[in-house]
């Protein structure tokens, strides 16, 4: 007699076989003690397993504790999200601070604004100071004729910006045919710039596209 395969007994137990197969197995089980024994063992085992359904949580406050844990988890998540956001913002800000001055190096408007705001007290921003004997209007006219841009002015000085060529002609017009360096007045500027470890502006300096200078009126 052929015994029923175990998987068929399992399916028979779960009642998922068709009516014909069920009948066959039923009649076989009536005649075969060995298959009957297997089936009974299967039955006992599944009954034992179903007893495990009585496993349950002993803690009464489990649901409330879980809700507390969820709230705590959300609070942590929000905190870390804020921290992460702040960290990213700090990194971006740092990157801007580090790279922005380089990237807008030739953006004169930005540069000028920055320099104008500090120009009165922070003379280091200036490329040079040129003492002149002319009055305010004459100096202003001279600068305008040479396309220099007036950044700031007062009764005693004019801060202007110009390119290399304009600066050169302004300088020559101020000092006549003498070179700027040899002029007594220009020495003041040289001394002043040396004092602050500034290099005297070299007009042929290829990288220096703009000069910012102060005409110190007398």
């Amino acid at each position, binding site marked *: 007699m052929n015994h029923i395969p175990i998987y068929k007994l399992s399916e028979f137990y*779960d009642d*998922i076989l068709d009516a014909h197969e069920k009948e066959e197995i039923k009649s076989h089980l009536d005649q075969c003690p060995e298959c009957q024994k297997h089936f009974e063992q299967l039955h006992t085992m599944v009954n*034992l397993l179903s*007893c495990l*359904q009585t*496993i349950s949580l002993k803690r009464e406050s489990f*649901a409330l504790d*879980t809700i507390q844990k969820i709230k705590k988890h959300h609070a942590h998540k929000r905190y870390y999200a804020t921290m992460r956001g702040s960290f990213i913002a700090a990194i971006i800000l740092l990157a801007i601070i580090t790279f922005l001055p380089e990237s807008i190096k030739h953006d004169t408007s930005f540069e000028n604004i920055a320099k104008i705001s500090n120009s009165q007290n922070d003379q280091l921003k200036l490329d040079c100071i040129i003492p002149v004997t002319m009055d305010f209007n004459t100096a202003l006219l001279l600068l305008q004729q040479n396309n220099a841009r007036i950044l700031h002015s007062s009764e005693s000085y004019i801060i202007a910006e110009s390119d290399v060529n304009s600066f050169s002609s302004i300088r020559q017009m101020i000092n006549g045919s003498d070179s700027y360096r040899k002029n007594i007045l220009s020495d003041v500027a040289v001394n002043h710039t040396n004092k602050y470890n500034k290099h005297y502006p070299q007009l042929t300096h290829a990288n220096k596209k703009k000069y910012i200078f102060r005409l110190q009126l007398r």
Partner: protein
Amino acid sequence: MSEYSDNELIDRVIAGDTNAFTDIVKRYQNKIFRYIYTRVYNYDEACDMTQDVFVITMESLKTFRRESQFSTWLFSIAVNYCKNYRRKHRHKIYSINNADDEMEFQIPDLRQNQEEMAITNESMQILLEELHKLPDDYRDILILRDIEGESYTTIAQMLQLTLANVKVRIHRGREMLKSRLEKRGLI
């Protein structure tokens, strides 16, 4: 226990009513705990893991598309969580004979005659031990089928298996457990 359906409770939770989630937890806590406990066989750890499953469920509740029953979806979260947990803690050695972990079972009298073996707490411990020693795939499927009484189709959805695969695993798992229990003299 709340009289609201799962979907009504979910709607309330999504609308911001956290207390509705308490009802969901109460409804499914034992089912999820049982599944996890039979996997890790440690009461405290199973408690923590059950809580974690509900934390994950709460977080991803908005993604529940209601294509299956909520219980099926919740159980699949538990199954995946346990798999990941097992992977993360694969070096951990579980103590099988930890007296602190012994559970008290409410055992129904299944004896049909006096000769039949009485089911004791001890025999339940043996059963749990042997169930715990089964490979994950077979243990999961026996828990769902023979402890929780889930249908073949639901099991297939929960474990993302084909129906044929579920049938094969159920009979192999039962065969494996039966031979082990036979050796222990339990059946």
